[in-house]
Each structure stands twice: as C-alpha cells, then as structure tokens.
C-alpha cells in the first residue's frame, strides 16, 4: 500500500512516498527534501506533488499518511502536521504520528551503542531524546540547555547525532559527534509508522510535541495616560 510520510520539525522539510508490504517492510518510491529555512509552508505542498509525480502515483492511491510530530520550532512543525492531517482527512485514510527524534535515531541504529539525538530548539536550548543499544527511547523528548543535556547523558551514551550536536559542539565535546544524516528523513518516519499502516490501525490525532507553553504574558495593568 502507498504511504506518504513527511517531517517539518527542522529547517529541512522532507517528504517520502513508500510502498508498505503486508509484513510492514518499506520500499521507498520517491523522496524529496528541501532546506526550507522558515519557508516550510511554501515548499511542502509542491514537494508532495513532486514525489507523487516522480512515482507516477495519484493522491487517491494513498492509503495512509505518516508525520513527524516534533518536537521542533512551532510554526514549521504545524505546517507539516496540518498538511498530513488534511491530506489524510481529504482522502479518508488514516494518519499516524511519530516523534521526529525517533525518526532521526532510526537512521543511526546500524551502529552499536546508545545514542543521544539533539536538534535546535532556539533560545539557547535543544530538543533531545536518548536511546539505548536496542534503539529504544529511554529519556525524552525534552527541551533543555545543551550543557544540561550533555551532563545528564554522560556515562549513558557515547554518540550524539542531529543538528544540535554540531551547533553546540562545545557542550558535546566529550561525545563522539556523528555528523552523518543529521536531519530527520521522511522515509524513516515511514518505517516507524509502517507496522500501524500494515495492520490498518485506526487513525490518530496528530498532536504536536510542543514541549513549551505558548509565550503569553497577561498585559501589565493599564498604564495611566496622564502622569500623576
């Protein structure tokens, strides 16, 4: 069955069209990624059309949609999630979500040992999650200062991946920083949701992993307009 997967939790927006077999194995038919900066909203829909066209597929051929739920900067993250939810809704097919950090970790599972995944959260913080040797997430996702993440991970893992690792290389100086495949890939999102798609699991509410409350302070009491 054809499954469309996407992730917009980082500045790299990524889309994949895959075929999911009955045993949930995944074959990638087409894939596209753009360095979006903050233009996720402009690049995502054309990228979806492009992967469909590349594979010679029609939207109505899709049987499921998979999406990275973050954590990630809110505005770009929402573009991917509302896109995935609306495509699934428009076609009447199920939508499945995954933690975007899990997708990033999956690309690095071939190597031995535990893994720390770190992406940029702005405001001098990172989104992160920690994985054991079997690739299971054992801590996170969370948002913290890089130094705190490094301190907590020391002794548990040797390897760090993700754009946050290179960006905060000082904080992660004691770790082996793996610079290969630093971005979440949509085909990894597809692999993670494939078992649910193959089992025709019920559709899911795609809820973003914000990890932060919205910035919203009540206004201070009305200022007097005339000096007292």
């Amino acid at each position, binding site marked *: 069955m054809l499954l469309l997967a996407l992730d917009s939790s980082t500045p790299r927006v990524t889309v994949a069209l895959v075929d999911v077999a009955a045993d949930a194995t995944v074959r990638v038919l087409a894939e596209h990624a753009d360095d979006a900066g903050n233009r996720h*909203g402009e690049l995502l829909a054309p990228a979806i*059309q492009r992967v469909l066209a590349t594979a010679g597929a029609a939207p109505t051929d899709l049987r499921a949609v998979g999406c990275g739920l973050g954590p990630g900067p809110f505005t770009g993250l*929402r573009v991917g999630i509302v*896109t995935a*939810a*609306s495509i699934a809704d*428009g076609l009447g097919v199920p939508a499945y979500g995954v933690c975007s950090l899990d997708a990033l970790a999956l690309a690095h599972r071939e190597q031995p040992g535990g893994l720390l995944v770190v992406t940029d959260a702005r405001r001098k913080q990172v989104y992160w999650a920690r994985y054991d040797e079997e690739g299971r997430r054992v801590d996170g996702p969370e948002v913290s200062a890089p130094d705190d993440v490094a301190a907590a991970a020391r002794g548990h893992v040797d390897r760090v991946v993700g754009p946050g690792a290179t960006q905060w290389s000082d904080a992660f100086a004691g770790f082996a920083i793996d610079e290969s495949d630093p971005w979440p890939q949509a085909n990894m999102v597809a692999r993670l949701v494939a078992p649910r798609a193959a089992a025709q699991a019920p559709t899911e509410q795609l809820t*973003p992993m914000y990890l932060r409350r919205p910035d919203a302070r009540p206004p201070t009491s009305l200022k007097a307009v005339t000096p007292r």
Partner: protein
Amino acid sequence: MTGPRGLGPLVLGIETSCDETGVGVVRGDELLADALASSVDEHARFGGVVPEVASRAHLEAMQPTVHRALADAGVTWSDVDAIAVTAGPGLAGALLVGVAAAKAYAVALGKPLYGVNHLAAHVAVDRLANGDLPEPCVALLVSGGHSSLLVVPDVTGTVEPLGQTVDDAAGEAFDKVARVLGLPFPGGPHIDRAARDGDAAAIDFPRGVVRDAPYSFTFSGLKTAVARWVEARTRAGEQVPVDDVAASFQEAVVDVLTKRAVAACRDRGIDHLVIGGGVAANSRLRALAAQRCEAAGIVLRTPPPRLCTDNGAMVAALGALMVERDVAPSPLDLPADPALALA
C-alpha cells in the same frame, strides 16, 4: 465552472488570519455553511490575541470545523469545486495553518486552490446576503485589525485603497476603551450595548483628522481622550458614567467613519457603499450609515453581523467569484503573507 445544479461553483473557504477558525461553504452567492471555532476565550485574560495561542487553536480546530461545514452544507468532498483560503493579511503563524490545510486538501482532492485577500473577502461576503456585488463600490472595512476605505472596481482583482487608520484600528479602539471602562474583551459588543443606555452627546470627544489624507482615520487621540476623561473622574472620586462614555466614544468613531465613507462615494461618483468587518456589527454605525447614505442618495449594503466578523464563508464567497470570473488558481507554493497588499 459551475456546480452540479449549474448554480455556480461550490467552494469551501478557510479563514485563520486571527483568532477565528472559519470554514464556509458556498454555491455561487448562496451560503450553505459557515462553521466557526473561536479561541477568543483563551485570549480574553490577556486582553488581546496571543499569536501562538491562536495558531495552536487553529491546528486543533481545523478538521472538526471542516467537517462541521461539510455536514451543515449537506455536501461531500466530491461536490467541492475549489478550495479558497485567506493568504493574508493577518498573523503569520495563524495564516500558515489555514494555508497549509487548504493546499493539502487541494492536493488530496485534485481541486484548484485560491488564495484570497482577507480584506477583499470582507467586501465579497456581501454577495451572500444581498446578491451580486455592485462594482464599482466604495467599501468601509472596520475590524480589530483594519480600518480602511477602498474603491472596488473588481473585488477579485483591482481594489484601490483610499485611506486607512494611521494608528489604532477602529475595533482596537473599541477594545482599548472597553478596558478603560472595565468591560470584557473583545470590547466592541459591550460598548455597543452600554451605549444604548447612554447619551451620545454627553461628552464631546475629539474627531481625529489626518492632515492631507481626507480618507484616513486616527483613533489613538480619541482613545487617549477617553482614558484621560475617565481617569480625571476616578481621581476626583466620582463615579464614571460608563453608558455615557461608551455612547459618546462610539458616536465619535462612527461619525468619522460614516462621514468619510460618504465623502469617498461622493468624490468618486460611486453610489454604492459596502460596510464590512467586525465593527460593522455595531448598531450605531449601521444606523448612522443608513441615515447619511439615504441623505446622500447612496445605496448602503451591510451584511448581517454574523458575516461581518471573521468567518470562512466570506473566503468561500470571494473564491467562488474568482472561479466564476475565470481567475487563475494560486500555485501550491502560495505564501501566507502577513502584510498581503490589495491588488
């Protein structure tokens, strides 16, 4: 392109420029559904719209609101000829949720996408209430974010701004004055209500004039004058006559709005005035505009209050007109533009 019964295109419109998630369905100029989810209560305690709160609420409300609109309209996706969406102006993050959703539906369903201007949609909505939009017309758009006078030769293409506020929008002035008077947010409806029991001539608040800009507005001086007046009473230990302040403030606002709108019609030789935007729900604005238009021989068109505030039906109404007029659909890389200018 026409719908199944040949009665005009069936268009689904999505509006997320501020704090209302609106999804409307129209067939030509016939209103079929107008579903709305508002995050206004979540903003009330902040005294204004918090962008991130609004964006989160849009995401949560999108699919439920779309489904309510389709159900209310009694149509299915296969009946829909096109998807229209507010591309701007508005809050960047909020707009983006609607634009991304509209694109996704357009791609999934293989339907054309129409990005529309929020202000033009506030004008076009009139066709749902009053039939074919008279073009050219003058439009007075007054809401929490805008106060504009426009000449509209073609609402799907050419819209010429004549003037706008140089500081606060009219609705913003209502909201700020409401706060000064201790009335809840959004303040417009509360001031409208309080003013009914007040004397509009009780206090002579200033009518702001913008030099060399006869069709522009300024409300910040008025707002300050009201705040000063109220402060002076409070400091003197006197009770503030809320109803009279509300009525006198409201009169000052609607006096300049209607005077300039009528002047614009007269100067341009245009005999139709359309009033839209949230403040167009104001009962005194409607009454005074009717009176002054009648005296000047101008036909006044006001959509019902429900269609004046932000909603999805207005977006669908403009989208349908674009389809009817063979306007080219928008490309899929259509940006959400917080400062989208009128064409």
